[in-house]
């Protein structure tokens, strides 16, 4: 068992005023080992992205604990926080919005180096930027172009180069491929995987695409309305999904086959509002196996096999 790089305990993030509160993340606990990839899946609005941003202190959590190398991230201030930012980075979903339109490629990639005073001269920063561009597969001739002149895949490569500039250990990938064409998605995923292999990175990979996490992750965390539903090693989760929600999600993956269709489990209804949720199981209104206890008690988190946990009364 290798070292835990990041550990989250009972993390909560509520938005809004005291009257109505949106429970974006509600009591989430998990940990990621060094050099591993945790896939986080769930539908829109389930708190995946919020979790990633809270981990990086882009949002302040309402309560809970975040440990990075065993140190309390929430206690970081000033220099310590800036130092932490060099170790933990983020790759954004939308490569069109995540790059400053007024800056050239080299300026964007060299910005973290400038902020952290990594090099003394502009020429050195420029050289490092070129090195990073080579690392992520951007042609040297693009050095002075602006983001709007490039396609989505290239822009995402710029975002990756920027995240890598300070040699981070941990990167939150917030749906890094969902805004891209399918053919480009594969390129970017391969790039991310190659970088992980060669640089020994740890990823928290947020996505709503299950086939992507299956291909990519060591562990998978399934979220529903700010809560953990099921967490297990990827192989285990796909072989033996336990929670009704996970089962339904997995059955929705299209199987390329000529013979017949796999039986799908359709989920009824819509996601209930995360504002002031009632007690009990959040999935209750849509669950086929609902029991009276589900409405009264929040389902406890049970470990059903090694590393496979699920939150359900069943």
């Amino acid at each position, binding site marked *: 068992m290798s070292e835990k790089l990041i550990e989250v305990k009972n993390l909560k993030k509520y938005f809004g005023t005291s009257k109505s509160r949106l429970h974006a993340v509600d009591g989430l606990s998990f940990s990621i080992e060094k050099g591993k990839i945790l896939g986080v899946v769930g539908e829109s609005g389930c708190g995946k992205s919020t979790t990633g941003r809270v981990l990086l202190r882009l949002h302040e959590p309402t309560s809970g604990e975040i440990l990075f190398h065993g140190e309390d991230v929430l206690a970081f201030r000033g220099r310590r*926080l*800036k130092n932490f930012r060099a170790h933990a980075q983020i790759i954004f*979903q939308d490569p069109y919005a995540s790059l400053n339109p007024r800056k050239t490629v080299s300026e964007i990639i060299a*910005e973290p180096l400038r*902020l*952290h005073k990594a090099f003394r001269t502009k*020429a050195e920063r420029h050289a490092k930027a*070129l090195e990073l561009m080579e690392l992520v597969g951007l042609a040297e001739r693009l050095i002075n*172009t*602006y983001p709007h002149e490039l396609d989505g895949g290239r822009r995402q490569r710029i975002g990756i180069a920027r995240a890598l500039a300070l040699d981070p250990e941990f990167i939150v990938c917030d749906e890094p491929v969902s805004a891209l064409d399918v053919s480009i998605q594969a390129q970017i995923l391969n790039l991310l995987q190659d970088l992980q292999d060669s640089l020994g990175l740890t990823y928290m990979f947020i996505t709503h695409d299950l086939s992507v996490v299956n291909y990519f992750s060591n562990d998978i965390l399934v979220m529903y309305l700010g809560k953990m539903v099921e967490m297990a090693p990827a192989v285990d989760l796909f072989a033996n999904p336990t929670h009704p929600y996970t089962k339904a999600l997995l059955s929705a993956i299209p199987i390329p086959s000529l013979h017949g269709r796999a039986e799908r489990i359709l989920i009824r209804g819509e996601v209930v509002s995360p504002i002031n949720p009632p007690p009990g199981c959040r999935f209750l209104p849509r669950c086929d196996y609902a029991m009276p206890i589900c409405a009264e008690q929040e389902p406890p988190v049970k470990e059903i096999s090694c590393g496979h946990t699920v939150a359900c009364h069943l």
Partner: protein
Amino acid sequence: MKMSSLVMQAVTGSAPAVDLHVYKKRTQFGEVWRRFRRSKGAIVGLIIIALMLFCALFANFLFDYNTEVIEPNYDEALETPSAKHWFGTDEFGRDVFARVVFGARLSLYIGLTSTTSALIFGVLIGAFSGYIGGRFDSIVMRVVDVFLALPSILLALTIVAALGPNINNLILAISIANIPYFARIFRAEVLAIKDKEFIEASRALGANRNTIIFREILPNCLSPIIVQASIIMALAVIVSAEFSFLGLGVQPPTPEWGCMVAGARKFLLSSPYLTIFPGVAIMLTVLAFNLVGDALRDATDPRLKH
């Protein structure tokens, strides 16, 4: 090893490295200029402004301030325009052309300083108010609203009346009256941009508030501010002429255009050229800044990019 060779390439651009100077960046300024110069009005405006600037900068070399602009010369009083005195002479025998040329210096000085200071303070107020948000933003913006509710001329008038009529107070009054406009515009720009992902990216990289405001947000909001500045500039020239006309700004015998028009009122029927020339100077300057402002607005509008 690899690093140093890359540095070498970057610095010298020598073979076998690709010459990086080939990949020249097309700047934002270049793009705007390309679209700006297609407007005829803008070019006319620029020429007028250049002419006024030339007068303002080199007035000393064209005329002697003390003997030709200020000192009375009763022998040549109220002469009509001639080869010697292009714009004629006023009731004290002073050359009107010389006074108009020196007036350009004053008007541009007042316009530039008041617009610049209004811009700087307005942008600072708008930036911090918009970026910090919350209660701070509400309080600051209500104060700005109060200033906006008062007509800016009335506000400036009050300030000058309270502090006394001279050039510095005039500049102060005009800039204070225009700060709210800049603050409003810039705050709106900041609000539109501050929740973009690239700002979040910058925060994730460890940028502090000032870095984000001045390096990430500001370059993205410059165009409406520049457009507004050119319009305020025209306004400042008018207001300074108005105030001097009313005796609340620059005092005679200083050659301010508004001041000159005021002094020449008595001779409106007998010697109309005394009012016409400084009046035309005011009109041309204001027109020029408005033309440039309009063209800049069109040139910086991203929706008209082609």
